[in-house]
């Protein structure tokens, strides 16, 4: 269950940071598809991980940026003087999602609960028809538009004229870089997880650098038969959990910690969920830079959530277009595209996988690790989410 994964992430955090459990004032977790038994998964996981039962916990949801929301919620609480130490994180268990009974069946079952006599119960049961048993799966489509995200990504890629070849090349780059980073031992944020009854998972198992030729053989997954988004150039859905320790500077220093990174600033932006579902980073990046008083060239490390190769490339093109900036963003000029040599150089969601609610923390901590490794000052994290929403944050290595 999801709280098991979350518990492992929390325990990993405790081990890595050696933070005393009773110092933690609050826990916030992000998740997208809720397990009905643990709707406040933050609390269940915290209790299971041995945190103090005096530490309150709540769960937030904001599609793929749920753990971003968890982190910024924690930051907000610290800024408001509510807490000094917050643990934030996210969890997603894509291999087991709640599947519901049909509405008719649910209604019958609920009425059955209230039926008093055996006769009433039997008459209710006798009304059940075969179609009552058709299950209802969690929707993979956008509620407002009924369009799946892959379909939207394919249209977005087409709108920006991004070819299949470009997308496959970018996906291959992601896998190649992830493999390199993994082999070099750079992905230090990973905590091994013992799957009950099975082997321990010690590393990301979705990294598969393939060849352009092999990728080229795949059929389009969404816009059939002529689309460009395929299984190979999309991020894949995995199980995963993440956790991050957030403190006020004074508290951290007082406790003798050296911060991995400072959160300089962040923004949330949203736009049209139909045609610009995944175009959020384009809108959010100039905003967060302005807010932080920086320009694109100040950024040493870019860490963007790779939902689809086509989506990343579309965003890069949009950010590099004056026409787009003027006509759709109300800006005088473009913000510019991040240089690729600073962009997702340790792989991304395309190669590492995308456990919805957990991805945000991975992006942030990878950016911090990259800054440290490469000796940079500023990092920029961006992630888009269902509903046409987006979070952009600037990290800072500190004084």
């Amino acid at each position, binding site marked *: 269950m999801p709280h098991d994964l979350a518990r492992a992430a929390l325990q990993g955090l405790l081990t890595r940071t050696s933070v005393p459990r009773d110092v933690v004032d609050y826990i916030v977790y992000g998740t997208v598809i809720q397990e009905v038994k643990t709707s406040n998964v933050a609390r269940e996981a915290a209790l299971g991980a041995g945190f103090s039962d005096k530490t309150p916990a709540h769960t937030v949801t904001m599609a793929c940026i749920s753990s971003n929301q968890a982190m910024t919620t924690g930051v907000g609480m610290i800024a408001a003087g509510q807490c000094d130490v917050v643990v934030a994180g996210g969890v997603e268990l894509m291999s087991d999602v709640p599947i519901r009974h049909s509405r008719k069946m649910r209604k019958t079952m609920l009425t059955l609960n209230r039926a008093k006599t055996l006769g009433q119960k039997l008459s209710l049961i006798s009304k059940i028809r075969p179609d009552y048993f058709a299950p209802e799966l969690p929707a993979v489509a956008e*509620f*407002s*538009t*009924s369009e799946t995200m892959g*379909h939207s990504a394919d*249209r*977005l890629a*087409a*709108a*920006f*004229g991004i070819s299949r070849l470009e997308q496959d090349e970018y996906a291959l780059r992601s896998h190649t870089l992830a493999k390199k980073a993994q082999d070099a031992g750079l992905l230090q944020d990973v905590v091994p997880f013992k799957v009950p009854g099975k082997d321990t998972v010690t590393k990301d198992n979705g990294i598969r650098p393939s060849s352009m030729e092999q990728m080229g053989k795949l059929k389009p997954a969404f*816009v059939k038969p*002529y689309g460009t988004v395929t299984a190979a150039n999309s991020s894949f859905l995995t199980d995963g959990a993440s956790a991050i320790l957030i403190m006020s500077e004074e508290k951290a220093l007082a406790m003798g910690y050296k911060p991995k990174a400072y959160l300089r600033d962040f923004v949330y932006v949203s736009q*049209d969920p*139909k*045609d*610009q579902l995944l175009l959020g980073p384009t809108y959010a990046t100039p905003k967060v830079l302005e807010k932080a008083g920086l320009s694109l060239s100040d950024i040493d490390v870019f860490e963007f959530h790779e939902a689809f190769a086509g989506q990343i490339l*579309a965003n890069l*093109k*949009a950010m590099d*277009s004056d*026409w*787009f900036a003027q*006509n*759709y963003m109300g800006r005088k000029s473009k913000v510019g595209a991040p240089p690729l040599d600073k962009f997702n150089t340790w792989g991304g969601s395309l190669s590492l996988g995308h456990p919805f609610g957990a991805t945000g923390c991975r992006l942030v901590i990878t950016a911090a690790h990259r800054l440290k490794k490469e000796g940079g000052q500023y990092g920029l994290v961006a992630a888009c989410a269902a509903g046409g929403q987006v979070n952009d944050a600037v990290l800072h290595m500190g004084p």
Partner: protein
Amino acid sequence: MSHLGCPRLLAPECISQKYAETAENSFNTSNIFSLGYACRNISTSSALHNRTHVSCDIKGDVAVVRFNTPNSKVNTLSKQLSAEFTDVMNEIWANEAVKSAVLISSKPGSFIAGADLNMLEACKTAQEVTQLSQDGQKMLEKIEHSPKPVVAAISGSCLGGGLEVAIACHYRVATKDKKTVLGTPEVLLGLLPGAGGTQRLPKMVGVPAAFDMMLTGRNIRADRAKKMGLVDQLVEPLGPGLKTPEARTIEYLEEVAIGFARGLANKTVSAKRSKGLMQRLTDYAMALPFVRQQVYKTVESKVQKQTKGLYPAPLKIIEVTPLQGSGSSFGQLAVTKESKALMGLYHGQVQCKKNKFGTPQKEVKTLAVLGAGLMGAGIAQVSVDKGIKTILKDTAQKGLDRGQQQVYKGLNGKVKKKSLTSFERDSILSNLMGQLDYKGFEKADMVIEAVFEDINVKHKVLKEVEAVIPAHCVFRPVTPPLPHPQHSIAAASKRPEKVIGMHYFSPVDKMQLLEIITTDKTSQDTAASAVAVGLKQGKVVIVVKDGPGFYTTRCLAPMLSEVARVLQEGIDPKKVDAISTAFGFPVGAATLIDEVGVDVATHVAEDLGKAFGERFGGGSIDLFKLMVQKGFLGRKTGKGFYVYQEGVKNRSVNSGMDEILEKFKVPANPDVCSDEDIQMRLVTRFVNEAAMCLQEGILSNPVEGDIGAVFGLGFPPCLGGPFRFADSYGAQQLVDKLRKYEAVYGSQFTPCQLLLDHANSPSKKFHQ
């Protein structure tokens, strides 16, 4: 609020639905032959020809043929376009380097909207039209048998001849948006698909579906077309990229189509469609002569029943499907007077979809509707779904609830028909604010009042509203067919220049007509604003001057009075209905009174009788009064001339009426009581009154008169409206008839001066 019931009359389906889409894309071809318009996409080979309507780009081994009628919103199959198209195709066939071709439009909103109507109308003889049709057929046959595959890339309207071009191609790719519609609307213009559609369409979608398309002329959306097998691939419209969504979408459509063209040429794509089980079954069944005959018989009898044999086109369509050589039939149909009448209506409708008062100073963004009755809620429904914020105000919670439910039901119906998503429905409904007070009226740009039809109530409401609305706000009393001259309402207003009348027809979401009434005090901008709102609501708008009964009600009243007299003369309601529908009215005359409501009819007759005197006499008003007394108000009370029961289709004559009709019986004069005479008595009074409205300046032109009569009152569309009927029947003949009846019944049939003028100079026509 049923007393607000306006004539609940549906113009025959063939007129009401169809042109809605095409009207915007008017067949505007006035400048079609203007030369010297440089086309952007001239390829090297065509540069010599200086083509203006069709261009050709060679992209690798694929030729991209672009249609672009200059200075027009839509492409039409004009002589020029057809000639250039033939030219370009011949070049493509001759060019060894080209292996396949894509046909596409340079206009995102229109592939080809059909044949050039002006070209057809300019033809003097059936032979000329037949020649045009046969030339088109030859060209399309060449495309069908082209050794190089041809792909149609369809974005926007693909209608009539445009669809015939598309189905002659080997493959079709269409944009899946609301603007992209496919159809064969020829029947609505009294024509048939004249360029091979009657043969190719049945092969493609099966005979039953082809009949449905050709006989109703309905527009088919791209996604439905895909399911029917009418198009092979869909392309989703794109959002903003590095170009505008429209520009990039059509470019993308072209790219996708080129891909398929290449695939067809090198045989990696097959044009063979796997037919569904249902279609294979129907195809199999239709191959059996017995089944085939049965289907044809059923279709024909249905058409006979619906058209009463008044429309030659549908019968012709059945006759020539799926045979070869519909060219001569096309030619014959094009010169019929029915076709001329329907084309006249088409042009008239296009004219009534334009705002002759220009753009209003301030766009109406917030609308307030007073009264949540049938009418008020109907107006709210057609406003919210166009993005107008609408306040729906009533005085009682119950009435308000009913009204809000009506709006919801109307929109939800569209969800069920899949023309809206449930999310779109919800977001449209967020534009609707139901309330009992005047909150928010200070933001209203326009107030439409649809309250109790009583002049004192209207005055009171006006005073209340004027106290809360901003200075620019327009006040528009909705005007049911009762004669409350607008100037009496304007008289009570502090700002009469902002008062304007509107006559919606019930049910508002179905009836296309809106009659707008101006007083001498109404300002130009107020009129512009009212027309703009009407057009936004999707209405065909006519603007008339103020006067008792305005235009539509005034024409209808004398006819209804004559119906009463006919009934009094002992003709039973069923017979009255039969002879009026046989003339082409969509609803029988007796049924019409039931639908309008006997109480309303009484009111109208009384009030207009007071205003116009003897001319509006005829049937006894006491007959109606007694019916009202007995509770025979028509459909709304379940009893009128007929008995109306839920779920009973074949309604019976109300036996309670026997006694009443007996009581008011008058002797009939056999000289004027043949079926034809009865028809003419009804129609001549209608036409005479319409002419009088034009003579008095209530109407500003005959076109609006025809449109108002057909779309608002169901005047037979095959006759084109009262004025076109006067032209085709002959003013002299009309006057002769009127004189004949005048001799029997007196001044009700006295022809008006305008008709006499036309009769005296035969060259004078209402429509040139």
